[in-house]
């Protein structure tokens, strides 16, 4: 029962995390110099979904997250939907085919995703014929955002791992809970 409720709360919880992150992005980084260090939390979430969820579930959640970002940004309609879905599908493909899992590879994923994300937005804007004024800005922010994403990704992923563990989305959590439950029964 408890497991079921917590499992159901996982997705709304994830959405709440996204909302709080977006609100913080929209308020805390309201400064030109801070913009250099503004992490894209939704990018972290999309990477997490690509690695830890089923294809359909992760994809639907990615679309929802992208929609939330579009709601809070002045981007042309559909840009972030396309962008995050490309990141999601690309990450999923890479993760399934080149699985390397240690801290260093995680940092590499963070840095790579940040760079690809910026270039992808530029590419999509180019396709929409609206990239003229974005080149300079993209180049300016490419390195700082890559660094900040590389630094933050282990912490964000640890937090998300903990979150999934608490809401029993992680299969290991369920096994551990059941094991503890059986141990308690044996003690009784």
């Amino acid at each position, binding site marked *: 029962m408890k497991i079921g409720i917590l499992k159901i709360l996982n997705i709304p919880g994830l959405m709440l995390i996204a909302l709080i992150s977006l609100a913080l992005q*929209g308020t805390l980084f309201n400064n030109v110099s801070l913009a250099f260090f503004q992490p894209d939390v939704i990018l972290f979430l999309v990477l997490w979904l690509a690695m830890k969820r089923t294809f359909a579930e992760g994809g639907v959640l990615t679309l929802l997250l992208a929609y939330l970002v579009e709601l809070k*940004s002045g981007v042309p309609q559909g840009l972030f939907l396309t962008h995050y879905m490309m990141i999601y599908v690309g990450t999923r493909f890479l993760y399934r085919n080149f699985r390397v899992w240690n801290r260093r590879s995680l940092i590499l994923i963070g840095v790579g995703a940040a760079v690809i994300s910026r270039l992808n937005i530029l590419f999509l804007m180019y396709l929409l014929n609206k990239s003229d004024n974005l080149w300079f800005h993209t180049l300016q922010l490419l390195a700082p955002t890559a660094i900040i994403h590389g630094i933050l990704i282990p912490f964000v992923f640890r937090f998300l791992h903990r979150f999934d563990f608490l809401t029993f989305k992680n299969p290991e959590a369920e096994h551990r809970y059941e094991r503890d439950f059986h141990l308690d029964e044996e003690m009784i």
Partner: protein
Amino acid sequence: MLKLMKQYRFYLILLLFLLIPLLSIDTTNRSPRDYRFYDRIALAITTPFEIAIHWTLDTVVGFYENYISLWKTRKENGELIDENRKLVNTILNLRELEQENLRFRNLLQFKETFKVDTVVARMIAKDVSTDFRTIRINRGKSSGIAPNMAVVNAEGVVGRVLRVNEETSDVVTILDPLSAIDAYILRSRVRGIVEGLSDTLCQLKFALRVDDILPGDLLLSSGLGGNFPKGVPVGTVIKVTRKSYGITQKVEVRPSVDFSKVEEVMVVTRADAAPAHMQLFDPAPEASPAPAKGPAKP
């Protein structure tokens, strides 16, 4: 059929995931895209969070500035310092009030000078993306705000309203790469389109290579389109690059508005074509023989 669908389930889902964003992408120009009903539902859920977080941050910062920083001093110096703390608090509050008063007075002066109907709004959030530069203000449809209305402050043009909700609106600032405002150089009357370039700069586009533009020239809104009053400061030319070929020149413009310090703005709900403001920035003889003193510093 069902068996076939099961067999190719992955590819069908993949196709769906790629099709949904591609179908929703907006290939038209940045026309004001109003909120749809599901946008409004999502906003109704998310806006209270945004306001609550903003309020919490303000409270924490205010608490830190007004109390914690003085706490140690109070401990060391007793009652006198405590009294001093109260006085300092009062002075700070008064200074803040004075600054606010000044800002509102400037806004009022602007409103009177340009003979426009305006709604004063406070900025509550900025764009979550670092590539785009819209801001959110705390006034919406209920205050009479509609898409495409001009947004200004005492320093000059801030941007225009992109879309409105009941209580909030999104404003595309002139720094946004997709923003475009028709403007002219005060000295030489050269016209062009001001577009966003970076977090602090804009550029004047479509100015011919032979046009007379110099660093330091003041750019004013042309008033074309009827949304912006004519003659509102847009920015100052800081760099002009002319190549020996081509038909246009590259002109970088620093906006009149310091966007890092924007707190209150005015949404122009009705722009009057009254000539009063023309006398301020237009030294053209037919407009006015003796230019009057303007509210904003060129």
